[in-house]
């Protein structure tokens, strides 16, 4: 049933000055990296990527960047406080290939770290490009290293790793190594550029899209993308490149809560 389940925050990890991970006891069944939960703080409800799936301890985690009213309210919560969760929703990343490059930008690292842990666990050689504005905002380094994935970092200001964008580092990795597949989540402008690169390198790839969501259950139409009308909450949020070619708005515009278009720049 599409009804929030009230759960207590088990623990909170401060990942960076702006990002916290909230861990919950959760009976893990078919949760897949790339899927999301609708998170209700008893005032508002927003879609958030699952950033940690632990089927052994039966825990899941949601990482939230403090960027506005809702995320600010959630950041003030402490262990023991309650949140409503419903999900998991949408289509997550498909794990395929023996060597995979995972590219995450900013809070887009949330599903990427869950993917790299899960893929590494089943024996895939995962290289992770982790991109952030500055060193303090690089996310999940310890978890990526513990999962035995190879970590490549870059920052906009050069304070850690390569000085440049995630796409610069991804291009370097793709030139030096042969990857069977690429997965990515991050700012759409980054993913659009990466999309063009993987097409050039002819590597199959999956991208996780973000659109304004209301119901999360495929009814309200708020997250439908042009021109095929697919619902990001059901048919997405993860799309293969061949599907993205049919999503003509990708990298160009997105709609707000009333449905008015805004260009992506």
């Amino acid at each position, binding site marked *: *049933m599409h*009804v929030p389940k009230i759960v207590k925050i088990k623990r909170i990890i401060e990942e960076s000055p702006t990002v916290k991970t909230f861990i919950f006891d959760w009976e893990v069944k078919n949760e897949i990296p790339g899927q999301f939960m*609708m998170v209700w703080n008893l005032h508002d*409800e927003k879609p958030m990527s699952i950033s940690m799936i632990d089927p052994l301890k039966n825990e899941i985690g949601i990482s939230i960047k403090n960027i506005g009213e809702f995320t600010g309210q959630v950041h003030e919560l402490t262990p023991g406080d309650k949140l409503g969760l419903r999900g998991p929703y949408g289509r997550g990343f498909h794990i395929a290939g023996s060597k995979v490059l995972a590219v995450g930008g900013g809070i887009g690292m949330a599903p990427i770290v869950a993917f790299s842990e899960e893929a590494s666990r089943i024996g895939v050689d995962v290289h992770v490009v982790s991109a952030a504005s500055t060193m303090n905002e690089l996310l999940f380094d310890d978890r990526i290293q513990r999962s035995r994935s190879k970590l490549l970092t870059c920052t906009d200001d050069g304070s850690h790793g390569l000085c440049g964008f995630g796409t610069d580092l991804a291009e370097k990795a793709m030139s030096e190594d042969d990857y069977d597949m690429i997965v990515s989540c991050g700012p759409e402008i980054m993913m659009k550029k990466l999309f063009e690169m993987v097409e050039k390198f002819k590597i199959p790839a999956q991208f996780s899209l973000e659109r304004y969501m*209301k119901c999360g259950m495929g*009814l309200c*139409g*708020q997250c439908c993308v042009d021109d095929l009308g697919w619902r990001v909450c059901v048919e997405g949020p993860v799309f293969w490149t061949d599907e993205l070619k049919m999503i003509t708005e990708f990298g160009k515009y997105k709609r707000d809560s009333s*449905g*008015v278009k805004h260009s992506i720049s």
Partner: protein
Amino acid sequence: MTILEIKLCGIKMRNPTMLAAGILGSTASSLNWAARSGAGAVVTKSFGLSPNKGYANPTTVEVTGGVINAIGLSNPGVDNFKDELLKLNKSVPAIASLYGANPEEFSEIATRVEGLVDALELNVSCPHAIGGCGSAIGQDPLLTAEIVGSVKKSVKIPVFVKLTPNVTDIVEIALHARDAGADALTMINSLGPGMRIDIETGKPILKNKFGGLSGPAIKPVAIRCVYDVFDSVDIPIIGVGGIRDHEDVLEFLYAGASCVQIGTSIMYEGMDIFGKILNGLERFMDEKGYGSVDELVGIAHK
């Protein structure tokens, strides 16, 4: 001509199903998708004069037999919506669902989109609207008549009126809409409103606290409304409320609906629901020897 083809107020439809207002339908892309999936016509999500963000989340929650929602008529406003209407692929008839607070608003929006769609559906029945819109109108027979009359004077295309079941006597409202010039009646809008309360926190789940109930649970009420109105009103009825398979469609047709709309069950079945229903309907008609959908309309009254 296939046996599923119908004519509604002079509009030819390849089959008697439509995408209902409010389910997807806020972009040309999703309307075209419904058409590609088999819908005989598509109805837009309701739009008004200006962009409206609607209510904050949670706007929807599932209940036994359906969903309660208080989306709050979110829409980008008529000017932005016209851009979407221009991108419709025109493979099936398109119906614009409009809302407003008074006759002038309805008529203005109607005039601005008349050239882009095949018909209008007036939403005077949303149970969670604010500012005098929605069921605040549809529960008042005189106000309903005033709005229908005003829109009819402003446009030449057919005007459907979507009725709320949340009234003492839906026949009275239906008669007023008909007398004011409505070309067809769509019934029913969501029921209630209803509520769902979280038992851990004691909080109503919807931000708006209450919302309209839709889905299979409301079908018996919708069937009864269609049945009652069919007896007293001589304009076509578009049946809507809880349809999930072709047997549900048959019930609506027997009760007196000329065609039907499908909405909430897309949550259960996805867009494939149109194809499944059409296959089932055609198979049934074939087995029973029916030659046209018209033969099924009103059977329960014979």
